[in-house]
């Protein structure tokens, strides 16, 4: 079961299943298999903020919708 990062519940940890073809994402540390935590979501078309192992990043809605994640167990 995977869903896109924009829609999943915040405050939980997820494993990234698929990412759009955007080099900046992988060079910042978001790629298949990585564990991330969705921290915040910003209404009215705003981004989501996520924590990686040691850094926090914000990802715009359009990109976040294309990142597929599944819940980490």
């Amino acid at each position: 079961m995977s869903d896109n990062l924009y829609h999943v519940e915040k405050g939980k940890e997820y494993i990234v299943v698929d990412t759009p073809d955007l080099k900046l994402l992988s060079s910042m540390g978001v790629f298949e298999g990585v564990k991330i935590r969705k921290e915040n979501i910003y209404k009215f078309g705003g981004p989501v903020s996520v924590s990686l192992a040691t850094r926090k990043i914000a990802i715009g809605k359009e990109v976040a919708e294309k990142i597929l994640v599944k819940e980490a167990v």
Partner: protein
Amino acid sequence: MSCHEVSFNKEALRSENQILLMGAPNVGKSVFFSCLTNIHVISSNYTGTTVSYMEGTLPLNGTAYTLIDVPGTYSLTATSEAEDVAIRFLSGNPEAILFVLNAADLEGSIKLALEVLDYNIPMVAALNLSDVAQRQGKEINVKLLEQELGIPIVPTIAVKKQGLNELKEKLEEVLSRKNRSKTGPFRISYSDCASCAGCSGCPKGTSALTYWERAKKIAAVSVKKTDAAPSKLDRFGDALLRPWPGILLSILIVLISLGVVVGAGKAMRSVLLLPLVNQGIVPLFERLFSSIAMPEMLNNVLIGQYGIFRISFEWILALVMPYVILFQLVFSFLEDSGILPRMAVLFDNIMSKLGVQGGSLIHIMLGFGCAVPAIIGTRTATTRKERLIVTSIICFAVPCISQTGALISLLADYSYWMLLAVFLTGAMVFVLISRLTGKMLKGKVDPLVIEIPNLLIPERKTYFKKFFVRVKEFLVDAEGPMLIAVVIAALLAETGVLAGISSFLKPLVSGWLGLPAEASMSLILGIIRREMSVAPLLTMELTGLQMYVGAVVSFVYVPCLSVFGILAKEFNLKVALSIAAGTVFLALFLGGVLNHIGIFLQILF
């Protein structure tokens, strides 16, 4: 031997004995650069302060090396302009690399370090921001990390100048070792190609993923988590990032900043500077010039109503300086603290409705200081369309602090509502321009992807140094054009030339805009400096409507000669001319329309 293809590049090879200062964005490279070379580079707590490279001299072992502040990158895959620059330098056969690791983001730093290590250039690393890591309960085993990476590592807190001497010693060691045995591998744990990943000719063909895997393993063994509770600062940083209470806090921070700049600026002006100028400096020159026999016209040019020695002090010292100083004090704090990127995230939704992304907010706020660094800063935009939209917004709808100061002096003395009305009109121009340029330009704007830095309390020394550099820069860059504007104003007004120009422009200035004919001075001086289009209005008796129209015209009118220059340099002459012509047209059009609406309303009520 390196297994990477080396592309020969003349520019990058220009200077010999290069040492590259490298690392991810926002890890403090520019602070190292400033401390090691004594050349001050502006550093801030958000990514992308260094958009092009800087070089300075670093003496080591009695040799003068050139230290190059390479723009920060997250990887070396040549996906952005900054990464291209970094790769060019790496391929230019540098003597050594000074790599800056972020102790608070070790995994990300190590990943980039591994990529750089594959170029097989002697390297020393600084483990910077070790105080932040400690604050977050991370204990780093430096010995183990040295072994894993095979390079010397020195823990540092660059803003406090801690660890810098040791870093230099290690660099000297590595450089002398290199000179003794040019061919021998300098690294301990890997041999040349064993760890190489992904040159096109290389059979190993590994991807970014393996770098991350290795980085993760190395970080895992060398970091020990202590169970320190998150510090107040980190909790505040998180709160500022949540929509609630982040948005409220951001608005409060902006209001407080505005209050400090406007309030303290007005106080400085009325309590200190105006008495100093009006009762001290100007009378002094009046007495001085009256004691010397000279033709009346010369006397007027020097000390008449628009005399050089009167308005240069009234306008530059009393009108502009207090606001410039206060703005830099407040803004430098916001920049160094890491508040701005949080605002970029919080207000990304509004900005994307306007056709840009939240990150542009940082450039726009920078533009409230001066448009020149703001436009240079837009180099970090990922598409040309985004860059042009943000640049247009800055030119049309963002007054620089000198101009804002002049507008405050003009309008707030009349009524704060007037000030509000002018800035609301400015906000409408902002929306109009972003929508219009968004529609007109081809291409797309990429969505926001931004790193959120840790919140920091600016280190006092670095903060004040930056403040003084900024104020000095303002004095050096702006003083000349301001004085030229003052001299032109004096010559025009006191020789009677202005009267001629005014009668020529009367249909436009008085007929269409409803301003006194002498206001043509504003239109002439505004070309040189933005605030100089406001300053002449201060000396005129204006009605409320005239003040509003005059302020709106100056607000939108030509974004000064320096900005024109930077537009021509960063884009091309066509862009510079279009923006300049656009601002003139919109300023005069909008001013005239508002004037006529105002007259119409006055007749009605």
